[in-house]
């Protein structure tokens, strides 16, 4: 799980005093109480977090259900801009990224994430119906960790997700 500075401070405070209330933490860090609650909830969720980015809800939903059954913490985004926002706020452990996205396409999202030091360690699996070799090469070149073409086998995708996570584990 990826942590930012605020997360680390909250963890430090809780390690010193486990009985510290949300109210006190929020006061100390200058953030709202709900934000603290959200962060603590996120920190206490130890499941691997996967962000699925796809504008096709019909594709996104079954995948989300399947991964949830595998006990992954699944979050979703439906366009490139939302994907970038979610990555920054949720700090997922892995991205399943469709290429054809409104607003910002998959390549651009991947490129931006890989350029940013805060996010370049998050593994990305490209997920698209575009099966051409040139697209695959382009995906890999701009830093995608794997490339899976639709329609895919769920078992294979899960295996690949696990493999990528293993490879990139700290």
């Amino acid at each position, binding site marked *: 799980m990826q942590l930012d500075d605020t997360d680390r401070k909250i963890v430090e405070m809780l390690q010193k005093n486990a009985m510290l209330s949300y109210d006190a933490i929020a006061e100390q860090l200058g953030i709202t109480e709900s934000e603290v609650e959200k962060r603590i909830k996120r920190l206490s969720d130890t499941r691997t977090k996967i962000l699925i980015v796809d*504008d*096709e809800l*019909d*594709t996104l*939903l*079954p*995948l989300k*259900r*399947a991964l949830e*059954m595998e006990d992954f913490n699944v979050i979703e985004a*439906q*366009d490139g801009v939302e994907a970038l926002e979610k990555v920054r706020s949720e700090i997922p452990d892995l991205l399943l990224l469709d290429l*054809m*996205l*409104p*607003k*910002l*396409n998959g390549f651009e999202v991947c490129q931006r994430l890989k350029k940013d030091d805060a996010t370049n360690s998050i593994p990305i699996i490209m997920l698209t*119906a*575009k*099966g*051409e070799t040139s697209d695959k090469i382009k995906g890999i070149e701009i830093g995608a960790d794997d490339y899976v073409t*639709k*329609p*895919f*086998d*769920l*078992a294979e995708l899960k295996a690949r997700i696990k493999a990528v996570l293993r490879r990139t584990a700290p």
Partner: protein
Amino acid sequence: MRIKRDNRVVILVICIILICTVASLGFKTHGEVEEIVQEQFSEQQLLLARQAALGIASFAEERVTIIEILARDRSGDEITNLTRCFKTIYEKTSGFYSIEFIDRNGVVVYGYPEYRAPVGYDLYAENRSSAFDSARDSRKTNISRPTLLFEGGLGSFIWVPVYEGENFRGVILAIIRMSTITDRFLTPIMQNRTGYVYMIDNKGKSLFEGAGKKAIGKNYIKMLNKNSTSDGWLEILNEQMNGSEGTAVYHEEGEKSNLDQIVAFAPVRWRNQLWSVAISVPASEVDHLIRSVYARQMIFLGTVIAIILGGSLGLIMMFSRWNKTLEAEVKSKTADMIRMNKELVLTNERLKELDKLKSDFVSMVSHELKTPLAAMRTSAQVLNMRDAGEKTKREMLDIILRNIDRQTNLVNDLLDLSRIESGRMELKIGSVPLDSVIADSIESVKQAAMEKGIKLDVDLPEGISPVKGDREKLTQVITNLLTNAIKFTPRSGEISIKAHDLDGQVEVKVRDTGIGIAPEDLDMVFEKFYQVDSTSTREAGGTGLGLAICKGIIEAHNGRIWAESELGKGSTFIFWLPKWAGGKNG
């Protein structure tokens, strides 16, 4: 161009070489010709002289013979008979000046013509009897050296003795005037020619002088010794007096001219007489001849040069014209090739564009086909999972059904499009009333509009003209346009459909209060998959082929369709269709 000039230079050089060759050959032959001509000329003069000499000799000999025959036959005859013959001879033969009979005493007794006969003239008395005596004593014909006649001019005296056995009767004297001979044989030679003829006897006395120097009867040798200017000629005269024949050249230093003279001479042998005929011609005559030959040669040479030059010029002209036509042909061919090349490049670009469009379309189609398949596959696999809950299972089934519909729509649209693009779309043309078509279309989109809270407004004037078309296809167009409008219109928006008559056409407008289309995209919206590729409208769903199909159908009806829009305020899709012009059918 340089090559052409080089060609000309080469041809010019060849011409010059040819001309030089011809000229040098001509020059060489000129020398030979000069020699030959001189030789031939001399030979010709000699022949002429010889011919004249022979003529004179035979002419004189004939006359002598006639007289001799007459003298021989006179045995026993009376002198009267003899003298009667004189007339006949004089009249029948030309050339005699007079024929006289001298009796044994040396007195002229008769002569013909009588007026020329000095009858009674006594040779002894005049002391001129030597020739008479010589003839009598030798009993042979005696010819005296040409002497001056009483009447002027030179004459040749032929003394023929007449014997009757041993009895001497007298002498027949025949006189031939020298002028008779020379007029006959020498004067004609030099007619129309340069030069002159002269004849001398063996003492150097002039017998004939063609140059008009009035030297007849005078002695050349004496004359020449007096001024002694022409030594060469003196030598020639000596040769002539010896009776030789030949040709020679001497230099004459005259008052008016300073010339070489060519002299051809031949002897005249007549009994005891030796004369010599000479033809004297200036050497310039040979030059003249050569010059005439030369002139011919020059004409020949000129002609040859003219032919060569003309031919070469012609060749050059021909080649240059040929070159020009070739160049022009090459130029036009090159231009053709350049043009064809350009066309090929353009065609190639167009083909590449078409190819790209096609592969883009194929990749788009495959993407669009794969997307619902992916959804169905994943959903099916989720359905198959043991720990899937009831709710999830329902969700998955819904997804599968929805995507089956979506796939079906896509396949239908693709088929429609394929028919339109290949021109295989079958139209059941008939009279189509717009109100019922619009009503049908609205019926099929009502549900979707209601779900989004969109108001549908129809404005149709009474008695609007029916259009000419396929009812089903036109319903599809309007339904597509309405579905499209609903898709891009936010909740609680408004969609209106209006129609009215135009001149020969009917206009239908579908207006929405949706997101609108950027001006630069207005034409693009009718492209296949345009909205799919455009990220801003991705969430609207659909196959992306609807508007392309609408355009195909309207155009197949000879109508036109276009879009007008203001970004953020809404779009209007307008199409025109031809009115139904036929009878009340359909």
